[in-house]
């Protein structure tokens, strides 16, 4: 049969944001792909060079609409490394709680978006109902529901409000029961497994070379998580495990990547509980936060989607001279010809959905 190019996007239900996936098909089989980005490019790096260090947290919030706290945090730890700021212990605990709440909200957002990709609208309603609970929790200390701007250079904006711990505990207990319910609804569903198993396979060593990190890499059985491997905040003092899954020896498929994220949600619940147990009293903001910085610094953090890296160069003024953002999805999308080839056209939503795309951070 003659080969032809099909353009999916920029307006397509599969894309989860604005981007174009051009696929070359031979009948129903994909033989090549060419992803195209740039529809959401806002030039965050250049804008950041014209704003003061503390102003940029509003920009980093807008890097990813599903996971804004983790991106702001990534920027803030890089600035703190550059300015050599010491963060009070209580602020570090609060940050960890907020990061894990954000990770839960982000994974639920992804799961809710993935289900309609597979034709399972009920899944979207269930997962987004639960995401609402965590948005309510994130709203309590920060005052907003999507872009929090809560983590600041030197600490956090304000202390946790009264009764936050009790409310969180109540919601976590409810959420754990819900996760058990979802195991019946999705993991044991024959149709869900038929759509996701043995689709979109890549091996762990391939993934490292392609630049795929985060849950997608852990779905291949690689025990790599920057929360432990390049530890920050108080993850070292807390007892938690890196979740890995495998579809087969050393490779992942859509189902194993789904399961890694479900496991990570359970782990996040555990981390939040531990944090509350150990959280000390004290100040939540460093007493010394400089305005100017010189030199260069970088920090890697584990975003909900993989390895986030912020590299900053200061020239002694109050604005960054160069600010570079590494987005995990940027490289993961670039590698999509590798894990799409050989599958059917109808598998594209299942595969591209399973890697958890966020175009906001990708296009910067």
């Amino acid at each position, binding site marked *: 049969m003659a080969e032809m190019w099909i353009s999916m996007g920029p307006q397509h239900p599969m894309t989860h944001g604005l981007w174009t996936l051009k696929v070359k098909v031979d009948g129903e089989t994909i033989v090549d792909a060419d992803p195209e*980005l*740039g529809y959401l*490019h806002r*030039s965050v*790096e*250049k804008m950041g060079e*014209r*704003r*003061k260090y503390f*102003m940029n947290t509003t920009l980093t919030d807008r890097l990813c609409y599903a996971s804004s706290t983790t991106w702001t945090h990534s920027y803030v730890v890089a600035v703190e490394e550059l300015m050599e700021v010491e963060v009070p212990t209580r602020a570090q605990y609060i940050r960890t709680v907020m990061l894990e709440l954000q990770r839960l909200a982000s994974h639920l957002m992804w799961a809710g978006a993935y289900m309609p990709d597979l034709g399972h609208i009920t899944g979207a309603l269930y997962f987004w109902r639960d995401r609402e609970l965590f948005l309510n929790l994130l709203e309590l200390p920060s005052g907003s529901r999507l872009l929090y701007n809560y983590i600041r250079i030197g600490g956090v904006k304000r202390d946790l409000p009264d009764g936050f711990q009790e409310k969180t505990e109540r919601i976590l207990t409810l959420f754990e029961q819900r996760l058990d319910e979802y195991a019946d609804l999705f993991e044991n569903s024959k149709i869900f497994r038929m759509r996701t198993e043995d689709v979109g396979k890549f091996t762990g*060593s391939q993934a*490292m*070379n*392609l*630049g*795929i*990190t985060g849950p997608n*890499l852990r779905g291949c059985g*690689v*025990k*790599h998580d*920057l929360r*432990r*491997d*390049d*530890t920050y905040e108080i993850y070292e003092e807390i007892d938690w495990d890196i979740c890995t899954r495998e579809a087969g020896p050393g490779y992942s498929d859509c189902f194993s990547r789904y399961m890694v994220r479900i496991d990570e949600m359970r782990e996040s619940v555990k981390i939040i509980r531990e944090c509350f147990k150990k959280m000390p009293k004290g100040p939540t903001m460093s007493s010394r936060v400089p305005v100017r910085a010189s030199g260069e610094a*970088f920090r*890697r953090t584990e975003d909900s989607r993989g*390895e986030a*890296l912020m*590299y900053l*160069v200061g020239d002694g003024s109050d604005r960054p*001279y*160069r600010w*570079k953002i*590494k987005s995990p999805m*940027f*490289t993961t999308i*670039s*590698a999509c010809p*590798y894990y799409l080839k050989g599958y059917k056209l109808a598998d594209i939503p299942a595969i591209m959905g399973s890697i958890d795309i966020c175009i906001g951070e990708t*296009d*910067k």
Partner: protein
Amino acid sequence: MNFKDLQKLLKANEGVTNISTLRENVIKFDLDKSISKEFFKKLKEEYYFEHCSLITAIDNQPDFELVYHLSCLSGELSVGNTKMAAMVEVHIHLTRDSPSIDSVSDLWFGANWHEREAFDLMGIYFIGHPDLRRVLLPEGFAGHPLRKDYVYEIHEEEW
């Protein structure tokens, strides 16, 4: 291999200068442009840096600087007794009149789009890159906006 041994091995290489330890698990050094490709190949194949985290282009006016962040994800390079993942930060100096360097996208596929981005926003040419097009800006866009001498057409507001 231990991370401390890596530092000794780096010292024995020609073209590697200014070796310093940024953190327990990060080594930073300058690399000569002329030997960059073969040295990157060595880093990947002998020193287990199988993941290219980031390529940053900096306009230092007048010259350019490229910063490569390479990491070891598999844990083959151990950092003392910790579980930390090893990383190197490689700085390469480029002159303004010939901002070009050998591409590493055949070593790490993950570097492919980082190089395209550096080309797109900073105008660095990567020799041997399979598909050096603009990635974020549209085809036909004039200039490279992250360069410090790029002039905005719009009125710039001072914050």
